[in-house]
């Protein structure tokens, strides 16, 4: 009996430690988006948005998040205008990703404006974040 209790205790700790390993910044952002009316983020929608091509005027007439980050988020990308190498976007490949809220907000603002010609909605940001981080929003 004692053994069983210990066993149950042990497995109940597993999801907890899993939660702990989750990225706090991503969870905080999900919470912010939720307060702005976002429903469950979808990694699938996020991926679609990431790959989608938008047309613009001028030299870079076709724009997409992949223009600089490549379509494989586990690989390094290259800035389409300056050739500068951009490290992989996936936190699995590059643990520094999505760990600084200010940085994430800053680049969402810049890159949505450049790519889509407008800022992203909270839902779009949540979806992209779910895709990049492969995280799900915690149910309350």
């Amino acid at each position, binding site marked *: 009996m004692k053994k069983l209790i210990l066993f149950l205790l042990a497995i109940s700790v597993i999801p907890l430690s899993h939660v702990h390993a989750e990225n706090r910044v991503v969870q905080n952002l999900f919470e912010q988006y939720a307060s702005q009316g976002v429903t469950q983020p979808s990694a699938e929608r996020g991926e679609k948005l990431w790959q989608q091509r938008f047309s613009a005027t001028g030299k870079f007439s076709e724009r997409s998040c992949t223009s600089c980050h490549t379509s494989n988020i586990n690989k390094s990308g290259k800035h389409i205008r300056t*050739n500068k190498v951009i490290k992989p976007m996936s936190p699995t490949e590059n643990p520094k990703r999505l760990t600084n809220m200010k940085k994430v907000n800053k680049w969402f603002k810049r890159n949505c404006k450049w790519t889509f010609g407008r800022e992203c909605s909270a839902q779009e940001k949540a979806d992209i974040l779910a895709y990049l981080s492969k995280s799900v929003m915690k149910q309350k």
Partner: protein
Amino acid sequence: MKSTLAIGSVIFTISILSIPVVWSDSDFDWDKYKRKSSGVAAVSNPVYQEECGSCHMAYPPGLLPSRSWEKIMDHLDKHFDDNAELDPQTHQTISQLLTKNSADKSNYRRSQKFSRSISQNDIPLRITETPYFIREHNEIPKRMVSGNPKVQSFSQCNSCHLKAEKGSFNEHNINIPGYGRWDD
């Protein structure tokens, strides 16, 4: 006898160890040396590296006069068709750093060349548009730059100048991708 030997060897060791100290204490003027070299001052401020080195190399401030940096910093929301906006505090930190280390305030000879080549009424927004830059690069054929997919434009100094981010533009550290080392 034994103790004389021990004391002797201690003195010997100390004197050997002190040679480099005495050496570096000589009156060789490193500052003067640097001013004569082909470089500009390196800036390793982490805020500058992070904010102005994410889309392209962080350009050493000694490549443009302060009036140019001021104009660049005043229009970060429309920065060469990109958006490089900063929060007010970071903006101030970087503006101060750029002005303090700008080409017209530097005592590096190379910076002074950039600065002096620009006429008083001009406020260039690009290093690559300064007369000194143009003069130094006019012998390089287009096929090695705009026609070279690994370079594309002169703006990426570090494509060719291997130590550009450290402020060094020495001829011995030039390698044009696909064409190799530059020999005059």
